[in-house]
């Protein structure tokens, strides 16, 4: 158990697939929630999410295939394609089988969904509109399913007490949505860089809150909520480890003081990935939320924030994947 059957490729896969799925869900939600004004206003936000989503899902899945034994130790060409066996059967009891199909659907849906946004002049009401909305309706549950599945995948085994907890899928889902949102933030910040001055000016001069572009604010508030849920999830994970019997306590010990993953978890995942972004977001969103002030976040800060969230999400996957494998059942 101290040897890692699953290493970086799986960690990256869990992270990227979650992030892509999160971006898909966020994008679809933004698109659907909008209806009239909202959707129109935030179409650009949905577009960034849609264009982003398939990329991490596909790259992540490629990493997964790279770590398959039949790929790593392939002795003949056909072995490189052995993973296709995933799609010759459906194994009801295997979360991975569920995951393979869900992920397969997710890739197809997200690619087509992205395609509907591909044209620069894509806009609400264009000829792709109905397909786009249909795929958005698919995307919300599918994205959530992928996020949940990454947790179920790990959580399904009594042999891995660190993972074998009902809160893990929830935690991974929340992290997947927050990293998805962070991904969108980065994309938006990078591609709309030229408009920053203009946008900020517009923000300042807008007569009422209703006229302001709330994309950024919306993203940040959602993110804050997700980070809060993540904290809750982690709190419950640790709390219940101590409320359950031996091997859970033993397993959780690796992230507690004295444990080998203590620093990475508390400084990396919690402080850098959750607390710092939360504090900054609080600082910027509270004035808007409580006093209706304009929401202006410096671009560099916005980028750093999103980067912290992404790093936090990656480190969360790392800590969880590693912790689950270096711990195991107590006794024999």
């Amino acid at each position, binding site marked *: *158990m*101290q*040897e890692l*059957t*699953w290493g970086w490729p799986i960690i990256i896969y869990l992270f990227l697939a979650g992030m892509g799925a999160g971006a898909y869900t966020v994008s679809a939600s933004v698109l659907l929630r909008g209806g009239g004004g909202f959707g129109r206003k935030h179409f650009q936000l949905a577009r960034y999410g849609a264009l982003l989503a398939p990329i991490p899902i596909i790259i992540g899945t490629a990493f997964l295939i790279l*770590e*398959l*034994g*039949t*790929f*790593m*130790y*392939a*002795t003949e060409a056909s*072995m490189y394609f*052995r*993973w296709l*066996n*995933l799609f*010759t*059967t*459906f*194994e*009801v*009891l*295997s*979360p*991975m*089988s569920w*995951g*393979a199909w869900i992920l397969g659907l997710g890739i197809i849906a997200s690619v087509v969904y992205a395609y509907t946004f591909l044209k620069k002049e894509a806009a609400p009401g264009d000829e792709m509109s109905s397909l786009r909305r249909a795929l958005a309706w698919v995307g919300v549950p599918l994205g959530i399913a992928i996020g949940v599945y990454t947790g179920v*995948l790990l959580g*399904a*085994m*009594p*042999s*891995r007490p660190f993972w074998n907890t009902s809160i893990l899928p929830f935690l991974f889902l929340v992290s997947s949505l927050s990293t998805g949102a962070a991904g969108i933030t980065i994309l938006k910040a990078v591609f709309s860089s030229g408009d920053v001055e203009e946008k900020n000016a517009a923000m300042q001069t807008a007569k009422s809150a209703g006229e302001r572009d709330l994309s950024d604010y919306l993203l940040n508030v959602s993110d804050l909520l997700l980070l809060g849920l993540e904290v809750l999830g982690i709190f419950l994970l640790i709390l219940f480890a101590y409320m359950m019997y031996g091997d859970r306590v*033993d397993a959780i010990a690796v992230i507690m003081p004295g444990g080998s993953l203590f620093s990475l978890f508390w400084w990396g995942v919690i402080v850098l990935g959750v607390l710092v972004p939360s504090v900054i977001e609080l600082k910027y969103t509270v004035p808007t939320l409580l006093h209706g002030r304009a929401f202006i976040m410096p671009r560099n800060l916005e980028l750093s924030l999103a980067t912290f969230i992404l790093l936090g999400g990656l480190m969360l996957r790392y800590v969880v994947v590693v912790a*689950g*494998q270096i711990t*195991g*059942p*107590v*006794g*024999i």
Partner: protein
Amino acid sequence: MASDSSKKTLSRRQFLKVGAAAATTAATLPATVASATTKQSIHYAMVIDTRRCIGCHACSVACKTEFEVPLGESRSWVEYVEKGIFPNVRRSFLPRLCNHCDEPDCVDVCPTGATYKIASNGIVDITKDICIGCGYCIQACPYGARFLNPETGTADKCNFCLHRVSEGLVPSCVNTCQGRARIFGDINDPDSEISRVLATNAVSVLRPEMGTKPNVFYIDADHTDERDAERYNTYVRIDTHRRQKRRV
């Protein structure tokens, strides 16, 4: 079948089965499960009488050679458990292998069906050509019995020497055991040696709380773990004799 499952396993499986039944319309599944279990004509199992085990590793090497198991991996191994304070010290031996569980988690999680339980004799085996080497079963096994074979890129483990058993031979480890500590046979046959031994001895299995219902039974196994050292204020040392220095 479900009635004697441990609660934990039961709930998960029940949940999945209900979900599965609904989703896939496999409405007959529960009934099939029940009847298939009772119909199983042969139920292979092993008893390891650790009183007769002298820790000689003949079984480990028999297995290594039988299957040319690559260095670093083991299908069968012997752990040493040393405990006590001089001069009251005991060393006992715990031979390990796949438990061929009645409720094998490895089979449940396999996404391709490569790992399966042979319905006619209970042996858990792997179809190499179907396995994709995802490692999921390796994670799921609570006994560290599985590994990724670097020669084939697929999951591997003890299969009770199916190729020998199907020719009427005992598994290689049983064949060579110095102390005749290993008894292999059919526990559905009340007259078999293993049935007699199971009926007339106190036996235990490893990690019963995992709900896997192992088919490798031990007589006089020392279930001491390194973590017991503190509890009993004594000295405990486990030697796994494999690449994984800590017991898995």
